[in-house]
């Protein structure tokens, strides 16, 4: 397990973000050593991202590998004005995992019986050891949502639950979940931009 003492740290703090941004810059210049350092600093967080969405270990390993190949390819596109390096990398990893879990296939994971949902424990962003400004703002805005609706957003974000999976989870019709999500997301944006 990575610890906060390792350098550079894969946390949201501004200093760690700067370290990761420097590494990403070197990776964009095809620096293999920087890539290895970037992997060491971030892989446990990124694995945490994909493994909560893809509950199968082999699929998680595959998604992580694909994500880092993409990070190598796209490092030059990282724009510090638009977010933290870790957030940028995690978004790539998350999209790999979501593409896999939402792959159109004959027998979808969505057909799994009830109770096959990920563990009930939702990741609590409040438990984060350090908070970037962006995370702090997001947490504050999430705090304005009703508890159920906040949990739905967090379950979707951290565990990749779809509308239907959320409907099963909350015992509500899918249409209701859609309405929740719509209101919650619009409220979040309004709050973040205010």
């Amino acid at each position, binding site marked *: 397990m990575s610890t906060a003492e390792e350098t550079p740290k894969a946390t949201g703090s501004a200093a760690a973000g700067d370290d990761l941004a420097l590494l990403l810059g070197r990776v964009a210049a095809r620096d293999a050593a920087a890539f290895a350092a970037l992997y060491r600093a971030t892989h446990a967080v990124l694995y945490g991202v994909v493994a909560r969405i893809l509950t199968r270990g082999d699929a998680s390993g595959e998604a992580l590998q694909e994500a880092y190949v993409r990070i190598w390819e796209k490092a030059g596109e990282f724009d510090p004005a638009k977010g933290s390096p870790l957030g940028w990398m995690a978004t790539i990893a998350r999209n790999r995992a979501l593409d896999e879990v939402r792959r159109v296939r004959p027998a979808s994971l969505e057909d799994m019986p009830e109770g096959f949902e990920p563990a009930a424990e939702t990741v609590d962003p409040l438990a984060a050891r350090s908070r*970037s400004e962006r995370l702090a703002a997001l947490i504050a805005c999430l705090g304005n949502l009703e508890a159920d609706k906040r949990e739905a957003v967090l379950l979707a974000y951290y565990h990749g639950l779809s509308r239907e999976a959320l409907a099963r989870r909350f015992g509500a019709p899918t249409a209701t979940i859609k309405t929740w999500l719509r209101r919650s997301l619009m409220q979040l944006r309004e709050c973040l931009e205010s």
Partner: protein
Amino acid sequence: MTLSSDDDFAAAEFALGTLEPAGRARLAARRLREPELDTAIRAWEARLAALSEATPPIEPPVDLLPAIEARIRAAAATSAPDGVATLHKRLARWRAAAIGATGIAAALAIGFVAREATRAGAPKEFVAILQKSADSPAFVASINLDSRELTVRPLAAPPQAGKSYELWIIEPKLGPPRSLGVIDAAGVTRGARLAAYDRSVVQDATYAVTVEPEGGSPDGKPSGPPVFVGKLVPVEP
């Protein structure tokens, strides 16, 4: 914002990941041709991305770095990001196809392309393989971006009695396809007409060949759909 509120919400759900498989696939396809939707998805991803900073880390069961590095090396060996290796793969593919298909004419043309491909210089030399599919190259267009010099050679395009092949440049900024001239029997276009176009237009354009009445299109417009098309790829410096 010109995006409809439904599309904006779809973008938000795409970023959050709550769309069902079919809906996600539909949006993934739409974002490729709808830049506003793509921008909206990226904006939503950026809004939510900070949440991932709070993800409790999990150590993978095995060290995946060596496997990732091996994949990157394998990818680099087959497709360089600047397209050079891609070109070499394509050259190899159509070379093999052309040799199998057409004999002497193709062999001559291959000699030409091989010389072009090994010529030294900055990435100003580009070629476009004009073809129906990856294994049926018909013409190779060679363009020098600095001088806008254009040469077209036939590979496997069969001559058509009473007809002419005409080359067109197609680029959204230009509007309708613009003629670059008729490809004569010797395989050279008459009149280098690329000089009038911007470098970026020349580089990004699609090149297409149509079959026209002998002597070329009578009205300056393609008489039918392209029979061969291709994009430019840089020739190795």
